[in-house]
């Protein structure tokens, strides 16, 4: 057992961080999605999208743990959310895709040529993927999905919809007849969110991902997504902490740096502790994803809920530490605040994940009690 990243994982994370630092427009105050394209291309050129593609399909065959620090860096630099969705879909196809799907999509995903968007959330949804109402019947998909990141740029949608036997993931080309896209108005336009309507879309024969186990496939998609979101949130929280501390060191009032006042210093210390706690939960959660460990659901939920609450807290505190500057558009902290709120609600809210942490814990406890009684 060892709770440290190896050199390759660390250096990949550093590389991604440096690369994205060159794309300063990603964190600019104005809410334009223009920076997303160049950043996506640079990440593709780096080979990021090939990392989770299996070696026999021309990729690096890495798993979520190998990319955790990279995704954290993507969070810290407000990299395109759709790029992370692409990684989540790659993970899903690598594990559950049919050979034909793998052959068709993975090489283009690896090259960063195929833009895939995740279509999960619906209007009257709760957070559970099981609650979607989009439906596939007789090979035809009907439903309306909301908050699809870069929905208008997508070549392919990964859609969660009900099959005859429960929720499943389907792959739907964006140019299929019956697909229409409407841009959203929302708090973070840099994600280029869209509503996507699937009106009587006839699906291909090989549209269903993981036909042997559709429910497990949905669960994997959801958990992998939640784990990656936890990495993004941790990255945002870490960057906000650094920003707050830097300001506390340099801004002077009453003839001294504001960081010398305990009210500020102690807030910063609490933020630092919270960020480290979020990292502990997130890294462990991501490891259970890599290993498909038995406690994956609990660990990922812990990571997502905890990192979400920490990121929100740290964004709020960072604004407070900056005083009036913190509330200005130009300083751009609002970008992190907005992105955090979007991520908090994707792949399940903190409330939903907390509930799952408790349910899973109670289940494990009951199993343990039963086992002990059986042994006695």
């Amino acid at each position, binding site marked *: *057992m*060892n*709770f*440290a*990243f*190896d050199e390759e*994982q660390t250096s990949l994370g550093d590389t991604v961080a440096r690369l994205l630092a060159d794309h300063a427009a990603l964190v600019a105050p104005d809410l334009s999605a223009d920076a997303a394209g160049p950043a996506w291309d640079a990440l593709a050129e780096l080979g990021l999208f090939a990392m989770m593609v299996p070696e026999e399909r021309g990729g690096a065959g890495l798993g979520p*743990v190998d990319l955790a620090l990279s995704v954290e860096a993507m969070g810290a630099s407000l990299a395109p959310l759709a790029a992370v969705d692409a990684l989540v879909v790659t993970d899903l196809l690598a594990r559950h895709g049919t050979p034909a799907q793998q052959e068709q999509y993975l090489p283009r995903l690896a090259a960063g040529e195929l833009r895939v968007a995740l279509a999960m959330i619906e209007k009257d949804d709760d957070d559970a993927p099981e609650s979607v109402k989009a439906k596939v019947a007789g090979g035809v998909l009907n439903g309306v999905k909301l908050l699809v990141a870069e929905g208008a740029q997508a070549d392919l949608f990964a859609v969660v919809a009900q099959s005859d036997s429960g929720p499943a993931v389907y792959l739907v080309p964006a140019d299929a007849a019956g697909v229409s896209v409407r841009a959203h108005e929302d708090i973070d336009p840099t994600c280029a969110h869209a509503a996507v309507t699937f009106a009587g879309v006839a699906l291909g024969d090989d549209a269903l991902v993981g036909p042997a186990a559709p429910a497990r496939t949905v669960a994997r998609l959801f958990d992998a997504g939640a784990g990656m979101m936890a990495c993004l949130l941790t990255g945002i929280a870490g960057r906000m902490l650094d920003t707050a*501390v830097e300001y*506390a*060191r340099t801004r002077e009032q009453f003839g*001294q*740096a504001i*960081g*010398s006042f*305990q009210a*500020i*210093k*102690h807030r*910063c*210390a*609490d933020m*630092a*502790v919270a960020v*480290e*706690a979020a*990292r*502990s*939960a997130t*890294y*462990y959660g991501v*490891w259970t994803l890599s*290993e498909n*460990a038995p406690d994956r659901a609990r660990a990922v939920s*812990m990571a997502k*809920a*905890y990192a979400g*609450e920490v990121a929100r807290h740290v964004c709020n505190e960072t604004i407070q530490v900056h005083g009036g500057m913190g509330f200005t558009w130009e300083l751009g902290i609002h970008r992190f605040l907005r992105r955090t709120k979007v991520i908090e609600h994707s792949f399940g809210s903190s*409330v939903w994940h*907390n*509930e799952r*942490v*408790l349910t899973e*814990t*109670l289940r494990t*406890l009951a199993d343990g*009690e039963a086992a002990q009684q059986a042994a006695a």
Partner: protein
Amino acid sequence: MDFNYSPSENEFRMELRTWLAAALPQGWGETVFEPEDEHERAMFRLDWERKLHAGGWSGINWPKEYGGRGATLIERGIFAEEMARARAPEGINIIGHNLAGTTILAHGTEEQKKRFLPKIISSDEVWCQGFSEPNAGSDLASVRTRAELKDGKFIVNGQKIWTSYAQYAQWCFALVRTDPDVPKHKGLSFLLIDMSSPGITIRPLRQISGESEFNETFFDNVEVPAENIVGDLNGGWKIAMTTLAYERGPEDALGRQIRFKQELDQLLITLTQTMQGNRSAIDNPAVRQRLARAISEIEIVRLNALRSFSRLLDGADRGSDASMTKLYWSHAAQTMYEVAMDALGPIAPLSGNDPAAASLGRFQLSWLQSKAFTIYSGSSEIQRNIIGERVLGLPR
């Protein structure tokens, strides 16, 4: 990063599990519990520590030459998990194991190691910590207890306070002033004091829990052999910092997490079995969210400690991590006991032996005890100062 266990690690786990099952009384943690009376409980814990030692399970991470097993960090993690699983009792010589032992290992002479370590690991000698004084708490460096070197002996005069377990201790390590004429950090020394020396008086102090774990300790011309100094004369501050780094460090946090996890599990089981109105207490949605958060935080105490271990193995400095570790576990545990008292509902105030109390009133006592977590081992405010200044580089 890898949380899988090797075959030898699994073997270690099974060996310990089997040992624990045989060593603990029949029905332990279900029908059989620790004695109620404070003194009996202390003796019970001392017996348990000695039993652990007899079984080879005491001080497992210490080097083999001083009676330990030289256990790896992974084995330490497994040890904590198995102790939690078996609901094993706490020890009473925690200060001996975690503070005196580690400090002597780090800075003691070979003679001191040979003299003291075996008796700590066997709990034949219990230790207490003589740092705090009435006028030197957070500002530890301003301690006034004097030690004057005369004819190869230190003569110690003064008063310590909040000395936990002094009533059970054979030895005390103390921070004393050996030079009053230099800046306060530079005139301190670290002494090992035999508690049976003439001139030592202890007076119990009652705590908010009603217990009297801590004491006032008075030193009146107490003679301490000169060889009982750890480190240099007037070099005690550095030694005390090592002690504090261990007191606040991941080993300590992991040990405590054992108890928090046990009590949290017990709370969850109790809540599923407690009716509130027409539903079970566990089904209160407002409580469920907070329970989940408590579960996560207590789990993070463990994960933080494991991450810290990995960093220490990589050669990181103990000091900076320790304050973060301590600040986190103390608040996580306090919050957990507050949630417990809320979740128990109307019967929450019932404690101890009341037949209507939940789970033998254990949560009420723990809730009261938890109020000390953010005060001892350096208060939360002091930890935040340290983190702010030494980890984040904010100005003083």
